[in-house]
């Protein structure tokens, strides 16, 4: 494509025809239209990369949530503050419900922001033409995906009696990860289809004069 265009531009220039006169003023639209007709344009799906980025980005938030759920971390905060663990159980500090809720909200926010930032970074690093659409779509749907992932996990845990057996804990980790990955991959698929459908591929690319 480059060689063909270079030769044509040179022939045109020899006759006083400028590059915009030959290929239009919107070089990007021209290049996209041509590349699409050639079958070499259009965003790649990158489903695995996008899902993996979301999982890695979500890890810090998930870690916070797991610490609270399994590590009794709020109670441990008191021990850290005191410098020792109380011998008498009655002295043990029970974290208020609002604090636990606040930490869970914080975990959800960190998960959301982390997943979104990681997906954005990976797609932009790969110069993906659907990066903006993917991130925009993900920003709107990720809360639902995360909610669905949590819901499925709680459902699974409930059926197992909220056991802390290793097999159940593994399920508690795999299920939300799989749900998040599947949800993000689905969003990515929608974004790529949307971008592919909107890319210029018409027979004639005309620019109407502003009159």
């Amino acid at each position, binding site marked *: 494509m480059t060689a*063909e265009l270079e*030769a044509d531009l*040179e*022939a045109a220039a020899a006759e006083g025809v400028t590059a915009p006169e030959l290929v*239009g003023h919107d070089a990007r639209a021209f290049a996209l*239209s*041509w590349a699409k007709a050639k079958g070499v344009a259009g965003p790649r799906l990158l489903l695995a990369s996008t899902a993996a980025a979301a999982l890695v980005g979500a890890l810090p938030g998930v870690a916070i949530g797991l610490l609270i759920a399994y590590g009794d971390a709020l109670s441990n905060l008191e021990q850290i503050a005191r410098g020792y663990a109380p011998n008498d159980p009655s002295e043990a500090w029970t974290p208020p419900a609002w604090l636990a809720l606040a930490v869970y909200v914080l975990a959800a926010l960190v998960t959301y922001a982390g997943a979104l930032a990681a997906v954005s970074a990976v797609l932009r690093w790969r110069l993906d033409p659907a990066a903006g659409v993917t991130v925009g779509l993900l920003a709107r749907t990720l809360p639902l995906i995360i909610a669905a992932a949590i819901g499925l996990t709680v459902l699974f845990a409930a059926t197992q009696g909220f056991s802390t057996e290793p097999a159940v804990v593994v399920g508690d980790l795999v299920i939300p990860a799989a749900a998040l990955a599947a949800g993000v991959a689905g969003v990515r698929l929608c974004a790529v289809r949307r971008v592919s459908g909107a890319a210029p591929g018409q*027979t004639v690319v005309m*620019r*109407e004069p502003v009159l």
Partner: protein
Amino acid sequence: MHRMVGLGSSRRSQLLRGVLDACLLAVIAEQPTYGYEMTKRLAERGLDIVGEGSIYPALARVERDGLVETYMEASNGGPARKYYRLTPAGRKALQRWIADWRATSSAVDGVLGTIEAEVGRD
């Protein structure tokens, strides 16, 4: 008035969308040629509305469909140019498109021609 000129240009470009591939095949059928030369030859025949690189995606499509084939040929002092020539499938496609165009233009003429004189009097 300017708005009407703009609409006319838009209408022409819309009409051209359906026949640009056929026009390109026709130009190539006359003589193997390269992209810029095709733009010039189309413009010489009044299709100066073809521009802004619109022939390149069209050429890619007809090449992908096996209607034309390409070869490189040295130019005078410049880089080698990519020439397009018709394939047997392209020649058959051009024959079909010419027949389609004749039928379509005849039918449209039949519709528009009956009213043209009357509209022209207004």
